């Protein structure tokens, strides 16, 4: 059985999920000089370092963060930028560069190849291409059961399963763009996109690439489009400046005032939003439960379009499409989806007039956001932990309940010393943990915590 022989070697760690967060974590762990370290990275897709986020091959699908912010290493922020420069894929004068996501997948792939080569003699890194079905604590550590019937054992397992592959239930007949269900489509048919955020923008760009000519209707509660990036300098803040632990309205009032004062001094709001970034996790963690809930329900949509921005060129393209009527943005609520395969009648209630409008569409795309109830996840390993009470959803049910040290918390409140989690799964505790600049910091901290 694979891995049995390694079971007694100290510091053996299995990373479940070899997408971006799994690779970033492996890279940080392997910085340790410990010769007995064993890192096993398990990924079900054929390629490591891609996951859902970076598996797109479309050149129009660019990163939403400029290359200068996308290094895999917390202590070497220029790593990705240098990688681009060294290969002639960007020049110093072009900055800020929003590189295609497929290029980022190549960067992570090469990074892992290099690690594999340099660790070949030491045997400290092992890659397994297989789906993980379940994780079980054992007397000496953990056992991860694989879909091929074998299992791997180690002292610790870290979940890095990222975003869910299947849309949340309740989206009716909506499918994910690029999934198997997204079959060939008559380019003159109407489609509806549920969501108006960055995923909708990705869907629009993919439709354009495919030569789609039919109507594109995008619906979300507020119908807000994300803002574009602009070159700037984040303002400097200290934790001593920021109100913590207040209720949400007080914090929002303070933040709006801060933006207003800075704008008076000629500073762009983006520099204020970005200046707050180093403290976002701290702010989130100190809020009472009521403030967190209110934020997710009422303020997050507004926050997201200011905080999670897109490349200026992409924004220009999308805005042009909205102005010309190519994309119709609707602020409202989907109240009914009737019909079946290929012919849907969607009833949308307008946010402003409360009037019902119906749309006949051939396909529905789910771009309603990457946050969903974790207990309904399509990931077998995560699901089996929750089903057996070894893990539980966080109070807001947007991820797994984990400690500030990334340890998962069981149904009865017990903290696991053997099963941990990183990346989007931990958003209930870490709030903004979807993007590489945040994930790499979390991985660096976790590596220090586990290996010293």
């Amino acid at each position, binding site marked *: 059985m694979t891995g049995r022989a390694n079971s007694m070697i100290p510091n053996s760690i299995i990373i479940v999920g070899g997408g971006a967060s799994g690779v970033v974590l492996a890279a940080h762990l392997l910085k340790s000089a410990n010769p007995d370290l064993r890192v096993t990275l398990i990924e079900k897709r054929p390629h490591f370092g891609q996951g859902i986020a970076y598996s797109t091959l479309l050149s129009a699908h660019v990163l939403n963060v400029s290359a200068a912010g996308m290094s895999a290493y917390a202590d070497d922020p220029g790593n990705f930028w240098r990688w681009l420069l060294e290969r002639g894929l960007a020049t110093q004068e072009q900055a800020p560069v929003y590189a295609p996501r497929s290029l980022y997948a190549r960067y992570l792939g090469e990074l892992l190849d290099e690690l594999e080569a340099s660790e070949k003699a030491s045997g400290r890194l092992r890659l397994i291409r297989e789906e993980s079905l379940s994780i079980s604590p054992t007397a000496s550590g953990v056992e991860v059961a694989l879909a091929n019937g074998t299992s791997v054992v180690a002292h610790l397992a870290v979940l890095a399963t990222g975003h869910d592959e299947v849309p949340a239930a309740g989206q009716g007949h909506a499918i994910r763009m690029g999934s198997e269900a997204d079959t060939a489509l008559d380019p003159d048919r109407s489609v509806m996109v549920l969501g108006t955020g960055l995923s909708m923008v990705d869907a629009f760009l993919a439709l354009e690439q495919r030569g789609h000519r039919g109507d594109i209707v995008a619906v979300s509660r507020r119908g807000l489009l994300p803002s574009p990036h602009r070159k700037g300098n984040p*303002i*400097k*803040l*200290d*934790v*001593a*400046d*920021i*109100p*913590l*632990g*207040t*209720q949400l*309205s*007080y914090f929002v009032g303070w933040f709006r005032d*801060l933006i207003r*004062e800075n704008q008076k001094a000629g500073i762009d709001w983006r520099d204020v939003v970005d200046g707050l970034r180093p403290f976002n996790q701290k702010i989130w963690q*100190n809020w*009472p439960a*009521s*403030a967190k809930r209110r934020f997710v329900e009422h303020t997050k949509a507004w926050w997201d379009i200011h905080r999670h921005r897109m490349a200026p060129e992409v924004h220009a393209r999308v805005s042009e499409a909205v102005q010309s009527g190519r994309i119709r943005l609707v602020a409202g609520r989907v109240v009914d989806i009737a019909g079946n395969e290929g012919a849907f009648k969607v009833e949308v209630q307008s946010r402003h007039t409360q009037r019902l409008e119906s749309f006949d569409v051939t396909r529905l795309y789910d771009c309603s956001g990457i946050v969903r109830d974790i207990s309904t996840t399509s990931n077998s390993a995560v699901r089996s932990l929750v089903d057996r009470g070894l893990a539980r959803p966080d109070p807001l049910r947007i991820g797994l309940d984990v400690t500030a040290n990334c340890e998962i918390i069981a149904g009865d409140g017990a903290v696991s010393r053997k099963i941990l989690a990183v990346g989007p799964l931990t958003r209930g505790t870490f709030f903004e943990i979807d993007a590489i600049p945040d994930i790499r910091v979390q991985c660096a901290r976790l590596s220090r915590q586990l290996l010293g």
Partner: protein
Amino acid sequence: MLTKKGKYGLKALVHLAQLPAGQLAFVNDIATGNNIPKKFLDAILGELRNAGFVQSRKGKDGGYRLARPADEIRVGHVVRVLDGPLAPIPCASRTQYQRCEDCNEATCQVRHLMLEVRQAIAEVLDQRSLAEMRDIALDDLPVEVKVQA
């Protein structure tokens, strides 16, 4: 710098933290019990209510109580609401920066050190809960006084 407002606010919260959970206190009782001018205390409690640290009830048997358990309220969080950014001197703040007329902030070593000091202030005050502050107070009293109390 902790102002009178900050000090009174903390005293009022300690007063509330000493009551059984959920019990309301009259503003008058808090004021007289802690030597705080009543009008000033009204304003302070209003701000603490806006920030979500206390709740109030109107009417004859109205009053104030903590909005959350005392071990969930951090002292540093309260001080920021009442006194603004934590800072040992007015120029050592990023958001409420007040320029000193007699020096250049870019080269002022005093300010640079004081920016460091405020981090330390935040570390101490953000670690301590209201419950801890309430209980610590007794440990600082001389033993004889504690025995008498």
